[in-house]
């Protein structure tokens, strides 16, 4: 089990290999469909992002509301493929170093990851209660009007993920499936 702390540097990211189990501590940002759309539209219109993503991680999640006395509700990953049209720009131009989600990524995203040095982590889909236990603080930092799709700044401790796709383009989905396929 590897332990890493955000912000991430390129060398650390390039040393991670598909299949590695990793515990993340530090600050991570949330962002999903509507937030990504707005960020990319802002950049294309010549504007700036509401948060500096350089060397940071985006977690694709839309959490449940926090109950009284709790930091956050259930907070498992959403399907990453929906963010594929937006991710390459954030990786190449804004220095995004990591993404956490579930499911495969497009060849364009994988190419951007290889060239700029970014990694794709997997969290267990549907294990929202377990994931929330590793989130120590949560605050909305942008796009509050988007409700569950707002950008949150999360402080996480030993947040458990698996390296899904590394900077060499190795894809754990393809590797795992090939090993157990019988047809």
């Amino acid at each position, binding site marked *: 089990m590897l332990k890493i702390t955000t912000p991430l540097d390129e060398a650390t990211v390039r040393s991670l290999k598909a299949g590695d189990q990793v515990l993340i501590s530090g600050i991570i940002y949330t962002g999903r469909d509507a937030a990504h759309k707005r960020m990319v539209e802002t950049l294309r219109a010549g504007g700036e992002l509401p948060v500096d993503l350089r060397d940071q991680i985006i977690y694709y999640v839309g959490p449940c509301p926090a109950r009284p006395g709790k930091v956050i509700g259930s907070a*498992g990953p959403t399907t990453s493929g929906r963010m594929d049209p937006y991710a390459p720009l954030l990786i190449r131009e804004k220095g995004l170093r990591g993404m956490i989600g579930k499911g495969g990524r497009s060849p364009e995203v994988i190419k951007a990851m290889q060239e700029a040095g970014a990694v794709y982590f997997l969290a267990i889909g549907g294990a929202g209660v377990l994931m929330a236990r590793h989130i120590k603080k949560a605050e909305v930092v942008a796009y509050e009007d988007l409700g569950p799709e707002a950008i949150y700044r999360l402080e996480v401790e030993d947040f458990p993920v698996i390296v899904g796709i590394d900077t060499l383009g190795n894809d754990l989905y393809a590797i795992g499936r090939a090993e157990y*396929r019988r047809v």
Partner: protein
Amino acid sequence: MREVRAEEITATVARLCIEACSVLGPDWWQAMAAAEAKEEAPLGRDILKKLQENALLAAENLEPICQDTGVAVVFVELGQQVHISGGNLYDAINAGVRQGYTEGYLRKSVVDDPLLRRNTGDNTPAIIHTEIVDGDHLKITVAPKGAGSENMSGVKMLKPADGVAGIKKYVLQVVEEAGGNPCPPIVVGVGIGGNLEKAPYLAKKALLRPLGQRHPLKHVAALEEELLAAINASGIGPQGLGGRVTALDVHIEIYPTHIASLPVAVNLQCHAARHATAIL
């Protein structure tokens, strides 16, 4: 005529929304234990363990199993001897969804217009399917459905000549293309027959059947078994990371169809096979 008050429906729906999002049935626990015993991939086994651990914490604390608490799909069986008083059925159900999703701190995931996409803030409107049946009971099932699995579902109008082989090919194609996206181990609901809109309804309804329970017709049950074996040979495995268990079960529902038609719908359900029922 038996009277059921609208406010009773609202309170019931609210309770079912919270219960369905946090508590999985005994059939699910049995299916998951069997899956864990069968899974050969070490990472796959670890994932199956964590999913059970997550579901246990959720049930103990009445917390949502998954942050995607979905669109509330509500199945209603309305006995024709029932009279609803004090309001209309659909308003009463939507009021229940509004109450349940707010009081249960469940995520509100519905946008008012698919093009403008503003969150309604209370997870309404629900998607409501009503069947009028004999008798004087009102049966309500709430089945919250998340988008991770729903988005990977599909419907296809096959030709009668495609036959059972064509059905198998299409179901496997949907599951293969979905890969890890719908959070396997999945439950595969298949609707065969009817017409364009009937088949997906059957597929969704098929997801409500308890895991491990076969269709009463032998040839349909045999196809369920065959498809389950084929899906589990795909290697997709828990979360799509490789393994022997891709699906916990395959449920098929059928309906008469046109001489020229063979509609097939596949509704995928993530491992959180959520639904809760009450009879009023």
